[in-house]
């Protein structure tokens, strides 16, 4: 027998150190150990606050003072608040329109970029820029771009003769909404584009060639091949985008702070205003909690779809 083997099998009793390292070989113990830091962090800073948030919605907590349970009072109060209803409307409008626009433009751009051309890499890098630049910074930029007096957009449009006065982007409720949607779309299209581009690249060109031989034109090819094969990925991307847009904060807060007169408040901004600026933690939490059903629905849809694809 080899010398190594002999020395390794010299008898020794299991000391504490040995038992410890033996247990680290056990995948279950090691696994739990490895996962522990993540679980701990997420437990303290995510799970617990999540539940706390649910609870706060049922209390009348304000800054500095512990609140007491008041049942559904917050929710009842909110349902009678016209600003809240406006916020509901705004959030849904913002989310639905922005996501649809992002999806459509994203698909379009992805299809366009899906061919081989010089500078494709550079183009892809440029296209991702709005997504890379911190949202707040681009929000500041849009804030300036939407200035009612000095907007470059207005100036250009006026010079092109399309309009004859400086547009009040942020002072007029509907203008403000569209401006925000535009900013959101500007920022969000790259996510769709790059994600879908990757998906498009997995579709074998053979399929398109076969379709071409069968006599299909571009639009037909798109509808019958591209879209169906892209649907799973599109669903995932859309669900994510919906959740993020629905729960948005910084873009709206920086550009309009929810104004004018609450015309662009979304759940996030209203919640912040009431809780942080107004001190009404309980009410703020209640507003945030209104987002839960929609988010749960989104997650559910995502799961169902992903399960089906498995």
């Amino acid at each position, binding site marked *: *027998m*080899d010398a*190594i*083997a002999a020395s*390794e*099998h010299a008898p020794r009793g299991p000391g504490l150190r040995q038992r410890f390292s033996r247990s680290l*070989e056990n995948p279950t113990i090691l696994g739990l150990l490895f996962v522990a830091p993540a679980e701990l962090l997420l437990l303290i800073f995510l799970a617990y606050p999540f539940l706390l948030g649910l609870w706060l919605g049922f209390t009348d907590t304000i800054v500095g003072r512990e609140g007491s349970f008041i049942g559904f009072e917050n929710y009842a109060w909110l349902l009678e608040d016209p600003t809240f209803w406006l916020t509901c409307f705004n959030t849904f409008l913002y989310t639905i329109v922005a996501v649809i626009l992002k999806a459509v433009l994203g698909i379009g751009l992805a299809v366009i970029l899906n061919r081989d051309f010089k500078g494709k890499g550079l183009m892809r890098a440029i296209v991702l820029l709005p997504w890379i630049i911190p949202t707040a910074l681009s929000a500041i930029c849009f804030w300036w771009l939407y200035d009612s007096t000095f907007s470059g957009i207005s100036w250009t449009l006026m010079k092109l003769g399309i309009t004859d006065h400086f547009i009040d982007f942020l002072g007029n409720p509907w203008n403000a909404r569209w401006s925000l949607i535009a900013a959101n779309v500007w920022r969000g299209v790259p996510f769709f584009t790059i994600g879908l581009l990757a998906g498009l690249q997995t579709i074998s060109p053979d399929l398109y060639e076969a379709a071409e031989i069968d006599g299909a034109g571009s639009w037909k090819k798109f509808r019958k091949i591209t879209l169906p094969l892209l649907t799973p990925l599109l669903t995932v991307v859309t669900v994510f985008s919906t959740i993020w847009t629905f729960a948005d904060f910084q873009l709206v807060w920086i550009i309009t702070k929810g104004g004018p007169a609450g015309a662009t408040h979304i759940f996030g901004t209203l919640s912040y205003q009431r809780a942080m600026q107004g001190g009404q933690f309980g009410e703020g939490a209640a507003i945030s909690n209104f987002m839960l059903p929609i988010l749960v629905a989104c997650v559910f849809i995502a799961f169902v779809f992903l399960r089906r694809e498995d």
Partner: protein
Amino acid sequence: MAEVRLENICKHFDEVVAVDNFNLSIRDKEFVVLVGPSGCGKTTTLRMIAGLESITSGEVYIGDRLINKLPAKDRNIAMVFQNYALYPHMTVFDNMAFSLEMRKRSKDEIKQRVQEAAEILGIQELLFRRPKQLSGGQRQRVALGRAIVRNPEVFLFDEPLSNLDAKLRAQTRLELKKLHERLATTAVYVTHDQIEAMTMGDRIVVMHDGFIQQVGSPLELYDRPANKFVAGFIGSPAMNLFEAELNGAGDEISLRAGDFTLDLPPEKAQHFQDYTEQKVIVGIRPEDFKQAAEHSPGKTIPATVEAVEPLGNETYVNVAAGNVALTAAVGKRTEIKPHGTLNLVPIFENMHLFDSRSENSIL
């Protein structure tokens, strides 16, 4: 002494039984091949010896040691994987040195042992390259080198040649066999290729559906297959197997199949007394046919030629005798053409008969 004993080994994956009732005694320095189609349990068995799969029931011994509960690293075995599993971010030297490093050997000892192994395999110039700079054959040698350096009691091979092209495979087979002789260490080798099994093994274990079908030397399995599966698995081209009915009694038993009848010679007939008026499975190897100029009923099989396959060293003819398809070896060169007739005379001493139901050999 590095004998390996597997006693009543069973492996269950939830409900699926991958290996059952596996008993085998491997002698020191023996080269044993586990062979069978995919899913037969050969790799699972190998992995149980290695310690990569837990053993549901049964015992495995290396020498006198019961190794069931020992972790893989303490079993003193070395394994060569199908895809070589070389560490891509390390040089060949470091790949080979890794196991010695883990065992805290001195730098000098490591250097010496790696050099030795490299020399045996002829890969000294490759020592400071990375795996991705190597060809398939070279990587395989490194994988071997890694195993040799360990100086284990048992070598385990998991289909190491299946990723090589045919020519390289034949060459490497030879080298592996020579290497085994030189190293004189017990080896267990898994493959699905019966040619590898036949050429390399001291003994072969044929497996199917988790069970051992037969254990024996290559020629034992070839000449005396224990059942229909082994008969059809070992040997290329495969043995002809067809259903027939035994008629008659005493010294005069004949078998009837397709559109022909064959009278069994008396020496053979006496073995099959219990099987008259029953269906059996007949096995004749392609090389166990002679040709007759004319058909004589009871002695020859009249067959229509369907295809001729000249391989250069041998010619195989595919024929049909009624609904029975046969392959016969007809010598190096032949004038036989498709649609012609051929009268085949089976060599009865080499004919096998198998029970229809149990598929075991009737002898």
